[in-house]
């Protein structure tokens, strides 16, 4: 490599560096993130493919191709976030060290010319002795909570006073906190899990855990790349739903969903009968159980009500009677016995396997499966329909007709089971961010220099200063200090 090659590499390198550290890139990335996010709220996310072809017609393939249907996880959206992170890091490396240095610098030995070049400055001529004037100025500044440093040079005495240095680093605290929050998000997405389950009262489930293993991924041109493999398996933690109920307002609107849970670990009951509701989850060993939804069971009922009718005349011969789920019931006045053994909320039949299955969890076409016994012997096993009561004769070779009249469903509770070890990192980052904001926005770095020198007859004071922002307030403060210096003066004042 020749020397010019080397310097060419160097200039390209530094150009790239400057590019990644520039604030123009920051603006570009922030505006792009905003604009794409808007697109993500306009095009509904994570819908089935048919939705997009129905909604967007010939644009659908394009939308799916560039990942607009799952935009926030598209590679280019992640790239923008990565660019933001890179931008922050490079920018901080570039700017932090010099900022640190100039902020901590305390150069007290300055002459009058230096002060006169400041944006904010005043010159006073006082009749007091320089030492006296200096002492008073020091007192005034200290009273205003400035830290001060003195020096004396060829040009008389000078003072450097400062406060609010921490404010300078507020922006860095904010930037670091942002990185911390993103770390928390990444930790959560790698090590966390989110599960959902519907539970019936009395049911016991085993809580899953995720195990992470380092594996090898060869999907990219057969090149072995490290990959984190996740595996969910059963843990030692078991959860039992003791009770679930809904509270209502007088108006009939839902007030609250409540579940009572009992949790055991390795066979030992740890938490017994804890009530949870929306906004009040239960946490154990980093796993949190949320009340998230509820519903009516699609595959079982609590009890069903039946009528017995004459087959020919359709006249009711018994008052309605109630059979509990899976419990034999003797129909009064007959030698029949029934048992409710099955239920589907939305009846469907698969002829291939001749099985009945629920088409959906909605109660569109509820059907119940009963076993009918005569004198202790099973005579039939019909499906009865709630919507089509008189359709099928239930009891063969008899004068009776069994009618499925009504049923009482079983409520299930929908629980979310989550583990997200990154959440606390996100909260710490968030707290830090707010602290950083207060530092950046409300702690101002103020610097004041004073030079006191002896003129031919009087004492000349030059005072000036700088602030990193909020300059109107600072102008006023500096004028107040000047007024105070003047007002304490015994002799005449000249501007």
């Amino acid at each position, binding site marked *: 490599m020749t020397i010019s090659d080397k310097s060419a590499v160097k200039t390209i390198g530094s150009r790239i560096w400057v590019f990644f550290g520039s*604030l*123009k890139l*920051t*603006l570009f990335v*922030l*505006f792009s*993130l*905003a604009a794409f*996010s*808007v697109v*993500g*709220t*306009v095009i*509904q*996310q994570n819908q089935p493919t048919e939705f997009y072809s129905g909604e967007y017609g010939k644009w659908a393939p394009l939308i799916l191709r560039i990942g607009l249907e799952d935009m*926030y996880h598209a590679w280019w959206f992640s790239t923008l976030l990565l660019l933001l992170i890179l931008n922050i890091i490079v920018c901080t490396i570039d700017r932090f060290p010099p900022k640190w240095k100039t902020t901590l610098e305390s150069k007290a030995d300055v002459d009058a010319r230096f002060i006169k070049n400041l944006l904010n400055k005043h010159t006073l001529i006082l009749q007091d002795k320089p030492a006296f004037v200096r002492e008073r100025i020091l007192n005034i500044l200290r009273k205003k909570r400035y830290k001060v440093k003195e020096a004396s040079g060829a040009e008389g005495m000078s003072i450097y006073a400062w406060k609010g240095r921490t404010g300078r680093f507020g922006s860095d605290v904010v930037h670091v906190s942002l990185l911390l929050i993103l770390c928390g*998000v990444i930790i959560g997405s790698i090590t966390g899990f*989110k599960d959902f389950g519907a539970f019936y009262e009395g049911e016991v489930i085993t809580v899953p855990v995720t195990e992470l293993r380092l594996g090898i991924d060869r999907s990219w041109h057969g090149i072995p790349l490290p990959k984190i493999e996740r595996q969910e398996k059963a843990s030692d933690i078991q959860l039992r739903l003791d009770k679930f109920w809904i509270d209502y*307002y007088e*108006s009939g*609107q*839902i*007030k*609250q*969903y409540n579940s009572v849970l009992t949790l055991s670990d390795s066979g030992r009951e740890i938490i017994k009968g804890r009530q949870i*509701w*929306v*906004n*009040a*989850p239960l946490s154990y060993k980093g796993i*949190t159980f*949320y009340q*998230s939804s509820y519903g009516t069971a699609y595959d079982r009922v609590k009890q069903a009500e039946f009528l017995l009718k004459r087959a020919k005349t359709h006249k009711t011969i018994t008052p309605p009677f109630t059979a509990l789920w899976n419990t034999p019931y003797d129909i009064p006045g007959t030698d029949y016995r029934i048992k409710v053994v099955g239920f589907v909320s939305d009846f469907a039949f698969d002829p291939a396997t001749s099985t009945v299955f629920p088409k959906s969890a909605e109660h569109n076409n509820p059907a119940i499966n009963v076993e009918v016994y005569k004198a202790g012997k099973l005579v039939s096993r019909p499906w009865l329909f709630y919507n089509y009561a008189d359709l099928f004769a239930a009891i063969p070779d008899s004068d009776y007709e069994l009618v499925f009249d009504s049923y009482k469903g079983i409520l299930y509770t929908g629980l*979310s089971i*989550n583990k*997200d070890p990154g*959440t606390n990192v*996100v*909260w710490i980052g*968030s707290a830090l*961010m*707010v602290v950083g*904001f*207060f530092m950046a*926005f*409300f702690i101002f770095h103020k610097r004041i220099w004073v030079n006191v020198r002896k003129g031919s007859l009087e004492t000349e004071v030059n005072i000036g200063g700088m602030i990193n*922002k*909020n*300059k*109107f307030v600072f102008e006023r403060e500096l004028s107040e200090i000047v007024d105070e210096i003047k007002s304490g003066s015994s002799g005449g004042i000249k501007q």
Partner: protein
Amino acid sequence: MKVIMSLLFFDMAFWFYLATMILYFGYWIFRKEWLGQAATVIAIISTFAISMMLVFRTKESGHAPFSNLYESMAFFVWITSIAYLIMEFKYKIKVVGAFVMSIAFIAMVATSQLPYRFQDIQPLNPALQSIWFELHVFSAFIGYSGFGLAFGMALMYLIKARFEERKTSNFLIDRFPASAMLDELSYKSVAWGFIFFTLGALILGAVWANKAWGTYWSWDPKETWSLITWFVYAAYLHARITRGWRGKKAAYVAVFGFLSTIFLYWGVSFVLPGLHAYASQ
């Protein structure tokens, strides 16, 4: 439930805000000191009336007065008025009142135009029964107010800066504070707004979502629009320190940011589907 007193105070506040706005305009145009004083007094009375509206609303409904669009709009007007009055006492810049009180009055008009069912008190659904929800909304609305004030002053800045550049004089524009002052105050408002918006809309919103649904972030349209708005104001803060963006361009970003805030607040509820759709209740 009875909602008589709060509606009464709302109607009262409505007319007071109209009067306030007219008086600030009067002060600006006719340069009469007494008009300015009257404007401030009526502004204080308006703020008192809307405060009473919120107090009675809380009493009548039994929950914090920002659980639907109607309540939260009144709450926005309340915070904006208080923030403006503090600023007026601190910086003595009454002409700004004409702009800020116009925003407050427009908010009152928009609120009064909401369908009747919003004025009625709805019991809180399970997800909204949380202290985190209340803190979330409370803080987010301080943020909205900060952005609203910044918007008003950024508009004034854009007008004023144009006149200063051309060195032209206009008896109305000359009464504006200097553009440097407007820029500084607009920045200060964004700073306040940004802190409370970040804390309220994003952080406390995330805490609440995490408590209620078990995820602190789910890209729901309202969440996403908060983030969009946040990006825009982050861009504003950085535009102010970027060569070539300082001044007018930054002011445009602040204007743009408030439009995004309005969409976040109104547009998402009525236009886009999602968890936060107050309107679909």
